[in-house]
């Protein structure tokens, strides 16, 4: 599969004030700190990691909702980090986003029709029978009755609002859609509907997804490949099967081991209890030296504290940044 999007050395630092009231200093918060990533045409790339790891920032950088501090993003053959505002607007037709919070992402004063139609108007269409027809098609596609078009967001449940958000993202027929935790704010009995809807739409419209989530079960279900992020870095990327069957980075292993069991008979209690990693994710204001995971890693070696591991292949299409897995044969 050809690459639809390629990020090279992508960096996003935020300037923040730190320290006490009287000793205030300016420090860089390294939200995304040197990420290389490829999204292939037609695939769903899952992006997982704990809160604060930079996954949402990365999603926004890739479609240039926020400007990068350094690095490049090539989308569909065009470098987009240096585009002029006018050229960027044209490029945006092909890149859209669905947000996590279906309550905050919709303007409460705009009807469903206005909300879904707005991207068309922004991109030069006139309000007409044709644009209204386009809204009708989108409503049908996301499973909302046509009678909902004159209603307002507060009249809908969370799942229905997420359908409205998806219709708005898709009306321009984008190539890439960044789905930023699209189901985590929804009731569990509604999540499956939205996941199925996203899968169906991908098939119908030939979409490519970046699917950002912290739920490893949902990501496993929907993704073609999965990237794991820790403190601003991608630490492992692989095909879904390879990643879940042979997680190679100790952080990926810890994440998977932390997922609750699916049946009470699988509980591991007492002697030989599950290897839960200790501690919290460190602050991105002062990430640890060397490998950023070394402060929590059960297999830490001296080299991990000083040298940052590079991404190396451990299998076909399976790359990992860890001193344990290279050099030598894969573990």
């Amino acid at each position, binding site marked *: 599969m050809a690459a639809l999007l390629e990020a090279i050395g992508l960096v996003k630092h935020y300037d923040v004030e730190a320290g006490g009231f009287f000793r205030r200093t300016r420090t860089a918060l390294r939200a995304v700190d040197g990420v290389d990533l490829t999204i292939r045409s037609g695939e769903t790339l899952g992006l997982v990691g704990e809160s604060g790891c930079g996954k949402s920032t990365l999603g926004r950088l890739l479609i240039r909702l926020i400007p990068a501090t350094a690095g490049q993003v090539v989308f569909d053959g065009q470098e987009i980090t240096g585009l002029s505002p006018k050229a960027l607007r044209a490029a945006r037709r092909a890149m859209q986003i669905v947000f996590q919070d279906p309550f905050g992402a919709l303007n409460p004063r705009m009807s469903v029709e206005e909300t879904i139609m707005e991207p068309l108007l922004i991109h030069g269409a006139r309000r007409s029978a044709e644009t209204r027809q386009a809204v009708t098609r989108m409503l049908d596609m996301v499973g909302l009755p046509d009678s909902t078009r004159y209603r307002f967001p507060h009249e809908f449940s969370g799942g229905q609002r997420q359908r409205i958000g998806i219709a708005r993202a898709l009306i321009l027929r984008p190539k890439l859609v960044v789905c930023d935790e699209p189901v985590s704010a929804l009731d*569990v009995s509604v999540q499956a509907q939205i996941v199925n809807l996203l899968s169906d739409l991908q098939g119908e419209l030939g979409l490519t997804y970046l699917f950002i989530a912290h739920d490893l079960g949902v990501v496993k*279900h929907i993704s073609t490949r999965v990237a794991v992020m820790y403190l601003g870095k991608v630490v492992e990327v692989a095909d879904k099967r390879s990643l879940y069957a042979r997680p190679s980075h100790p952080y990926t292993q810890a994440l998977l081991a932390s997922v609750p069991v699916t049946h009470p008979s699988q509980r591991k209690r007492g002697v030989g209890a599950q290897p*839960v990693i200790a501690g919290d994710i460190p602050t991105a204001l002062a990430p640890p030296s060397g490998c950023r995971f070394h402060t929590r890693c059960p297999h830490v070696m001296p080299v991990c504290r000083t040298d940052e591991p590079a991404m190396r292949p451990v299998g076909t299409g399976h790359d990992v940044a860890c001193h344990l897995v290279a050099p030598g044969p894969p573990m």
Partner: protein
Amino acid sequence: MSLLEVRDLTTSFQTGGGEVTAVENISFSLEKGEILGIVGESGSGKSVTALAIMGLLPRPPARILGGSIMFEGQDLLRLSDRSMQRLRGPGIAMVFQEPMTSLNPVFTIGEQIMETIGAHESLSQKDRFARAVEMLEKVGIPSATSRMTDYPHQLSGGQRQRVMLAIALVCRPKLLIADEPTTALDVTIQAQILSLLMDLRDEFGMAIMMITHNMGVIAETADRVLVMYAGRTVEQAPVGRLFDHPLHPYTRGLLSCVPTLDQDQDRLVAIPGSLPEPSRRPPGCRFSARCSYAVPACGESIPPLAMFEPGHAAACIRVRDIG
């Protein structure tokens, strides 16, 4: 005698559109040292049940329409505010979902733990300090003595939830109500907190009411499970039985609609529709509008909770037919 025995609890809320019931005829019991999982989605009434037991329902707008809550033989609904206050802490304690908003931002965590001790026991300042440090160590806060002077904002989300647990447990409660204690936390921190809760249960022998929407949390911790939907109990069973032989279509749906790590499926089994608003609940079985097994009779009257196996009850008239 059970530690806690809730019988036919029914509560309502006064809303702009009139009075609506939040929970109806909820009954369950909890033994010493037992973990009862209460599963439900938003609006199922699980948090209202917890607040009713704690005596923390804001009245008005809330009202208790009937039922009893017996804790160690006394009816909590008949206790004075003062007696209820004495019971919170050494009798029943609660941790909430939001560790961010449950701690007071202008007091140190040490002050907040020591305040709780002081409210229930007459100990010297020095002894209270020692007790607080000991509790912080127990819940896994490193270098506890120096953290006593930290303010809540200086702690991470996981550490705040540990502090909340320390406050809840410092008076050695017989019952801990944990309302979505790990929902706001990352999966690695969730695993730490759940494992801590299980250890503390083993050490103190306290009972836990584990309220969650996450079947994985239930699978990890619960001994018995109560499944709630739109204010009513739809199923109650020992945990192994519930996962092996769920009877109610809603429970079946909940167990199959969440993708897990050990299965591959092309398509998720979705439950159609969404939870009904309290004022727009359908007549009869409240799940009937979303249920693929529903027949006209389901809409006629609310199905009673019937026992199908010892300890395993479900409120569905179709259980025998759907196998």
